């Protein structure tokens, strides 16, 4: 049954990159929030869902073109994240397990709130028709939209890297991450840094949502499908940006190759098990985020 040719192997490897970019886009916001503030945000999947609904609303009711919906979804979800951080999360920073629970509550509220507003029938985000094609070189082929997602992932990594390592805000974030008290004594308002980071992470989830709304279905429950995998990327990566990038890359390729050799279900199971074994030997993840964990 298995038909390994040169072209199909190359296809599997390219697809692995694409799956990796999807994992990465899903996990990026989570990584930033966890890496900086140590908050395990269980509502991350629902932020993704909000991004998809934001895009849907803008496209459907206001006629905003798809490519503009992406940055606008960032803004909308970032503002929602900001509100949630100010009204709830900021009181829980020294209680990580409690933030985990509180954000689970937030996810229930967001999911049901969206359902009450938009109904439970699936929505759909239209993408420009020129995108729905593939690029083919000989037998090697990849869909254009997947290339686009990959490009967005690269762009987001670049933007986040620039923000963290080339701006004043980034210096403050890294200072607070490494030692909150010390940073405070240098006059950095850590509470403000946390707020901005949380909003940033939520906004990135919003971008993920507007992309996934095209690949997938737009439903109040759509976020749950991404959240466990996104968590695993963060945990495996150790909470740092680079760690998440590597973890997504390796898992994405592994998933694609296993699915190519065996089948999708078994690939997923195998990836989970490998992650558990990996963490047995490296519990701090690939590259630890620094001050957050001991």
């Amino acid at each position, binding site marked *: 049954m298995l038909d390994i040719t040169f072209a199909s192997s190359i296809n599997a490897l390219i697809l692995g990159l694409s799956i990796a970019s999807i994992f990465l886009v899903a996990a990026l916001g989570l990584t930033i929030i966890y890496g900086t503030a140590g908050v395990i945000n269980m509502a991350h999947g629902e932020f993704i869902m909000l991004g998809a609904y934001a895009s849907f609303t803008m496209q459907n009711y206001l006629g905003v073109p798809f490519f503009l919906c992406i940055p606008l979804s960032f803004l909308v979800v970032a503002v929602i994240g900001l509100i949630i951080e100010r009204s709830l999360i900021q009181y829980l920073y020294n209680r990580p397990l*409690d933030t985990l*629970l509180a954000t689970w509550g937030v996810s*229930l509220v967001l999911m*049901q709130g969206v359902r009450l507003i938009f109904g439970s029938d699936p929505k759909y985000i239209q993408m420009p028709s020129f995108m729905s094609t593939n690029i083919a070189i000989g037998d090697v082929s990849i869909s254009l939209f997947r290339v686009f997602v990959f490009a967005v992932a690269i762009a987001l990594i670049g933007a986040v890297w620039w923000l963290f390592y080339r701006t004043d805000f980034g210096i403050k974030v890294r200072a607070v991450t490494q030692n909150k008290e010390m940073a405070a004594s240098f006059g950095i308002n850590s509470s403000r840094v946390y707020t901005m980071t949380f909003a940033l992470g939520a906004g990135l989830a919003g971008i993920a949502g507007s992309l996934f709304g095209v690949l997938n279905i737009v439903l109040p429950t759509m976020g749950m499908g991404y959240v466990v995998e996104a968590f695993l990327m963060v*945990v495996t990566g150790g909470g740092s940006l680079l760690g998440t990038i590597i973890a997504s890359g390796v898992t994405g390729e592994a998933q694609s190759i296993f699915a190519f050799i065996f089948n999708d*279900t078994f690939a997923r199971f195998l990836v*989970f098990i490998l992650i558990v074994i990996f963490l*047995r030997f490296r*519990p701090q993840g690939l590259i630890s985020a620094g001050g957050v964990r001991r």
Partner: protein
Amino acid sequence: MAAMEKNIYHNKALQWGVYAVFFIALAIIPLVQDDAFILNQFATYGVYGMLALSISLCWGFGGILNLGQGIAFGLGAYGMAMTMQMQSQDPDINPIPPFMLNNALEELPFFWEPFWNTSAGIFLALLVPTLFYVIFGGLMFQARVAGPFFAIMTLAILSALATLFIDLQPYTNGVNGISPPGALDLGFVVVDPYSSVSYWTVFVLLLVSTVCAKLLTQSRFGLVVQALKNDSERVRFLGYHVAFYETAVYAVSGLIAALAGCCWAFLTQYVSPAQFDVGFSISMVIWAAIGGRNSLIWAIMGAFMVQGAQSYVGDEFLNSWVLILGLFFILVVRFLPGGFAGLTESLLGALSTGGRRRGGDVPVDVSKAGTEGA
């Protein structure tokens, strides 16, 4: 720990009194109610209570947040359902369950064989999940995976198990799960799910596991476990084998959850991979959190309260029920980290000592303490 406080909440005799009152109240129900539905419903709440108890034991006392308690629950439930399924089979006439025929199995898989025997089946239903917890917990705690990381790992294992049970369709009937056609027959009694027999079975098991858990927390072992939660590094420096204690308390909580799974299977005559649902495992944590994770009895009552409210009030709201539950839960986490137990403790503390609080058997603000070690 500090000397006995004046807060009567920490009075051990009184605590046992509260346990007694709770269980006597539960014991009265079948005497005044012979409605099959109520009995079955309260027995199911009892199962949820066991789950909340198991969460309270490993999270409230051991500081190990476990978002994958469905692992033990599901494995236990599968074990019991397999036992019940085999009771309805006949070695000569129809030796293998109908769903296996549809999946082209000619003979019973070897790991189904022990389930011909009811005692062996029930024993396995409890042993397998406990052993799973010992191995998985051992691996993780040896590697010093703790806190949120451990919680996420339990989630991952839970998802992996659900995937596995769905994929192994010839042996587990996949997503459709196993619905044994008959009630559990223990030889001396048939546990009809709509009778007081099943109610009493769950009652006794809940009582026994609660008392054992309570005794455990008051023992020397329990003291070390609680110390772990507050500062596992210090406990390590004192020469205790931290991973052993963590694994042990995690495994005991797994055993209780497996017991709950067994009860669930004979109460509903049904088990499926939905038992490994992430939402279900998290709702166990919600019960314990709302009731009060640091108090075994309050955690149990949390399960009764939340599920009871869902059964009796939830229908009035239909669509907005989940919204209300979510908001309520956020409020509890934000303002009542100790749940109703914490609230009671503060109220009683204010009554008896004019507001002076000390840590003891049931410390108030453990959430903070728990995180330092994590």
